[in-house]
Each structure stands twice: as C-alpha cells, then as structure tokens.
C-alpha cells in the first residue's frame, strides 16, 4: 500500500483510494493462483469495437477531427486474428479504404476527416488502417500519394536552428515528440526515406533534449517525463537506429518505476495514477529496450536476463480491472470503456504476452477455442517500432473460415502473407496438426480477406518458423 509518511496530499489520497479499490477487486474476484477466473473475452470486445466502425452517435462530435484515429483504434484490435471473431459485414473493406482515401489532403498527408488539413497523427492512423485493411502493396500505392506525403512530412520539419522537431500540421501546429514517431512510422510503413525527414529537423538531437532528468521523455525539451511521449521518442529513435543516443539505462529505470506496486498497471508520470493505456505506451518500451540492449551487448550477454517488469501483474491489472464485462476496456475501475483505451489495453496485453512469454489465464478463453489461440492472440503489434525490434517481414494476419468438416476445436486458421513480394503464402496451424498432413490438402482455396493467397497443392511444414516466444504452432508454407 502507499506509504504516505503521515502527510496526506491530493496525490497520496487519490493513490490510496485507487489502491483500495483495486486490492478489493483482486481479493474478492481473484484468488491467488486461480487462473480459471482470468480470461480475455474477445467476443464482447469485438462486438463493442464493431459498434464504432459504422455510425456513431452525435455526442462523438468532439472526435470529428479524429475519425481516422477511431478507424485505427477499432480496426487495429478488430483484426480477427487478434480477437478471433468474424469479419464485419458492414462497413466492408472497400468502404473503409474509400473513407481513408477521402481523408487524404491534395497536398499530401491525411487529416482527421474529409477536407481537414493534413496532420501527422491522423497520417499515422490512416497509414496503419490501410495496412490493416489488407490492401496488397500495389493497391495501397493507388490510395496513398507517397511523393506528396513525403513532401508534407518535410514541410512539417522544424529546422534544427529553430529548435528542431516536427509541427503537427501546417502552418503552426504544436511541436512535440509525437510528431517524430507518427512521421517515421508512416515512412517505415510506406517505404519512404526516414533519414531525410530526420535530418531535416535534427530529430535525434531533439528527442535527446526531450529526455528529462528522470530518464523518461517529455513532449518538448524540459517537459516532464511522460509514458506516451517516451514510447514515441524511443520508438522514433529506434526506427532511425539511433536509440543509443539516449540514456537508455536511465530510461529503463524510470519506466520500471512507473509500474504500480499494488495495481500492476503503469502510470504515465511519477506520482500519478495508473491507466490501462500505459500498458502499451510504457509496457511497449521494454521489448524495444531488450532489442536495443541485445544489439549493443550481444544476445549472449543478456542470457538469463530476468523480465524487466512484472508482466503477470500487468496482465492481471488488464484482465481484472480494465476489462468490461459488456465489452471494451477502460482506463481504470470507475471509468467507462472507450475505443482508445480498448485499443491500447489490448495492445499492451499483446505486447506483454509476447515479451514475457507469460499468458495469464492461458488455459481457456471464454469462447471455448483452444489454448493455443491465447498465444496467437498475442500477435505482432502493428507498431512499426515493434516490427523493428522483432525483425520479421511486414505482415498482417486474418482468419480463414474453417471448413465445417474439420475435426478440431480451433476457431480459425491464421493466414500470413509476406509483403516481400514473391513469397508463397503461409498458414499458422496448431502444432497438433502436424500429424494430420492429409487434411491440409482440404483447406479452402481462397482466403476470405485477400481472395488471392491460397493455392491448392501440397503443403510444406516448416518447424523452424517459430518466431514468437510462447509459440506452440507451426508454419505451413504453401509451395
């Protein structure tokens, strides 16, 4: 419990109140070691998220300049590969793509909605949405005007002699570290020149100046260390291969201290309350740091490195305190669910499962699918920086409907297409399917999403394609 040293202030009072609430939840609803009571409820979350993809009530008007963001928060987590649900009927993929296209500004970049000025944050969100809408690269190029987008990014650069960094929109948006990440992530996903953008605004130096005395990164130089900006700054620097310019040791120590000792969740700033969304912003920092330390010191030097934070505690916080029974996830008990928190709580859960290999409540999910799908739920984050830390080809995943005569309980097969062009398509299957080679020929000819990846013919099992820490599946490559 919080130690208040007999001097209560607003901070300690609020903290104590939250701890009481959370401790009560853990004590009454979760008996130690009882993992059966812990589960992710994917169907409810899918229903909640899909409710936001079509029509929203007029009360959402305050998010009118963030419609590309809403699209991202919903479609990112709605990827059926993550939550295992059916593909939405409406809006269909073409409508989503048409909407994103309508947000593109004639002079490059994307706005939060049609007609809006181009802005770095919706540009990032729109780029991710296009990746998730399963658009093969040539079709994606038809939507995004890449040269104009690059020129937009360069226009957003503030020259180093004027302070550096990037402004969020023309001609005088706010300048902070978010812009750096949004721009570089978009470059990464669209294969644009990141270093041209970084050089035009002295980005590495700017990010370093944003690292505060505490070790975390603030929005602007001298600002307080903050979880959201820390992820953005570290990820941007990592995308440039220049993260070692930061004081990573100090950053790590600050990030570790941001985990609530009672709650298990992360807080965004020292002496503030934990919030579900920081499960991703703060939690996502650790795998990046491990990847960077490995680069610096070699994998052997990190043998036996313990987990850098308490992953089980974080997952407990997410499953028990952030998950709403009727669907969606939230900041903390007492707050309602919203799409932003649903997106980042689930991203944080996914990150944590992958980073730690721990899947709390891993035995069964409520919808009865096999345990292996809990590990598959921890799929690769769409964050480009995450992909930098785990260097696999850029990819997306989506389900293939099961033929009805399949004798297995698994709800779906995951199909992965590599963007590297000519790679034959591949399928993840549970390890037990190795024994059933003959059945593989009976898999459906077309993937429901991309309509193009399945080719009939013998399948080859590649057991060395097990990339994920807690993987218990095999990769089937169609030759």
């Amino acid at each position, binding site marked *: 419990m919080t130690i208040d040293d007999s001097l209560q202030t607003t901070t300690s009072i609020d903290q104590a109140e939250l701890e009481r609430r959370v401790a009560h939840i853990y004590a009454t609803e979760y008996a130690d070691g009882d993992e059966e009571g812990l589960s992710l409820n994917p169907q409810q979350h899918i229903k909640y998220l899909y409710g936001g993809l079509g029509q929203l009530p007029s009360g959402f*008007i305050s998010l009118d300049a963030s419609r590309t963001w809403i699209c991202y928060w919903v479609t990112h987590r709605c990827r059926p590969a993550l939550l295992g649900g059916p593909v939405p009927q*409406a809006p269909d993929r073409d409508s989503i793509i048409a909407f994103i296209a309508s947000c593109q500004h004639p002079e490059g970049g994307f706005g939060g909605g049609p007609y809006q000025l181009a802005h770095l944050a919706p540009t990032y969100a729109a780029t991710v949405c296009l990746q998730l809408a399963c658009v093969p690269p040539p079709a994606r190029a038809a939507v995004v005007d890449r040269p104009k987008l690059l020129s937009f990014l360069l226009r957003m650069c503030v020259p180093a002699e004027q302070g550096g960094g990037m402004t969020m*929109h023309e001609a005088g948006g706010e300048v902070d570290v978010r812009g750096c990440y949004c721009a570089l992530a978009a470059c990464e996903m669209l294969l644009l020149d990141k270093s041209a953008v970084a050089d035009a605004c002295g980005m590495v130096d700017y990010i370093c100046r944003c690292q505060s005395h505490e070790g975390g990164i603030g929005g602007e130089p001298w600002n307080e260390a903050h979880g959201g900006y820390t992820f953005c700054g570290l990820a941007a620097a990592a995308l440039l291969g220049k993260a070692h310019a930061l004081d990573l040791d100090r950053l790590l120590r600050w990030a570790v201290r941001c985990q609530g000792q009672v709650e298990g969740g992360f807080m965004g*700033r020292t002496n503030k309350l934990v919030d579900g969304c920081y499960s991703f912003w703060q939690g996502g920092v650790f795998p990046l740091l491990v990847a960077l330390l490995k680069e610096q010191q070699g994998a052997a030097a990190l043998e036996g490195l313990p987990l850098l934070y308490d992953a089980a505690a974080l997952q407990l916080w997410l499953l028990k305190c952030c998950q709403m029974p009727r669907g969606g996830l939230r900041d903390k008990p007492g707050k309602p669910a919203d799409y932003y928190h649903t997106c980042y709580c689930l991203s944080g859960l996914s990150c944590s499962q992958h980073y730690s290999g721990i899947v709390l409540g891993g035995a069964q999910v409520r919808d009865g699918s096999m345990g292996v799908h809990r590990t598959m739920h921890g799929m690769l984050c769409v964050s480009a920086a995450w992909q930098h830390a785990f260097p696999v080809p850029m990819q997306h995943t989506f389900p293939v409907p099961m033929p009805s005569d399949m004798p297995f309980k698994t709800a779906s097969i995951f199909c992965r297409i590599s963007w590297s062009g000519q790679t034959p398509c591949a399928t993840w299957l549970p390890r037990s399917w190795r024994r059933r080679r003959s059945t593989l020929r009976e898999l459906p000819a077309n993937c429901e999403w991309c309509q193009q990846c399945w080719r009939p013919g013998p399948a080859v099992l590649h057991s060395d394609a097990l990339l994920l820490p807690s993987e218990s599946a095999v990769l089937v490559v169609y030759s």
Partner: protein
Amino acid sequence: MADTSQDFQPIGERREWADVQPRALPRTPQPVVEIGRDELLAELMDYFWAAVARQELSERVLALTGEIIADLNSSNYSVWEWRWRCVQALGGVQARVAEEKALTRSVATANPKNYQLWNHRRRLALALGPGQAEEELAFSAACLEHDAKNYHAWAHRQAVLQHLGEPRLWAAELAYTERLLRQDVRNNSAWNQRIFVLRGAPAAAVGAPREAYDREVAFAAAQLRLVPHNESVWEALR
C-alpha cells in the same frame, strides 16, 4: 462567438452567408466512423468547409470559427488553424487580442486538456511579446489551480519563460513551485519545473550555479524529511 441570449438562427438562414453554397462531406457507400449530425450545428461545418475551399479569410469566417469552437467542437485543429489565419489577415494579433483571450479562456474552462487551445494560446503569447508573459503565467496558474498537474499548462509556462521571460519571472517561478509543493509535495510536475528553472534560467535569475545547487539540495532534503517516500524528490536529487 454565439450570442446565446438570442434564439439560435441556423446558418443557412443568415443573410451574411446567403451567397455561399455549403459543402457537405462526401458520402461513402457504407458509413465509416460516421458521426451523427446535430441538425442545426452540423451545418456550421458545411459552411466552414465551403469557406476553406474558397480560401476565404474574413470577419464572417472568423465569427464562424468562434461559433464552431464554442458550440460544436473545440478540438477541430483545422478550425483553430483557419481562425489563426483569419486573425492574421484581419489586422493581426494586436488588433484582435481581446477576442482571442476570451475564446481561449472559455475553452480552457470547459476543457483544459485540449491541445489546440494551448497551441493557439502559445501562438498568441509569442506574437504579443514579452509584455504578455505575466498574464500567461497567471492564465496557466489558474488552470493549475484546478489540476495542479495539467501537462499543457506546465509546458505553457516553460515556453513563456523561455521566449518571453525576464530574470525576475524565472526567479518567481521557483517561488511558484514552492507554493504548489506546499499544497502537494508529491507534485512531480512542480519538481520537474524546478529542474527546468535551475538548469535553464539565465544566470541573473537564479544566481551562481554552485549556490543554486546547494540551495536546491537543502530544499529537497527538507521535503524528504517531511515525506521520505516521495519518488519525485529522489529523482530530482539524482
């Protein structure tokens, strides 16, 4: 800004907009994150987009941006940006200062965590120059009274001091953080601000580095004696 003492007149019926064809949003075959329209207020956006398409910077557009910000959606960055351009075209910040101050104050009251509001206020402050510094510190202090950790408000203070601050204001900032720390010694934003002042202030403000350092360590130690388990202080000392 909308005059709420009169009945609201839909923009389509206002004489000053009679010459403009409103520009509705493009329709997609199926609705995608489509926000339901408030019939009266949503029309404001249709006229706004028509004005932007014409590249119009005028009194009526300025008034329209104010109405949208106040009554419909204070987070639309395109509206704020267009408003700034109107202000520049209509005499500049010096000529329009009262209205801008009033608008930002009312938005801050309703939603003090709005990015666009603080960006607009910062642009305003920097355009007005050093004479504006005290009022900006007072403005952010008023916000901090309601939420002593408001990130934007603290960032605003830093920007104001860096661009507009004379040495006495820097020195006063240390005193301000002390006041807030007396209210809540665990306020990490206030501790962060102390580091900002001690490392970033002109020498005239905080004195010779060695003495400033010793004073700060003494101050921090005193706070730690009161509340040893205070993460903020240990970090500041480090």
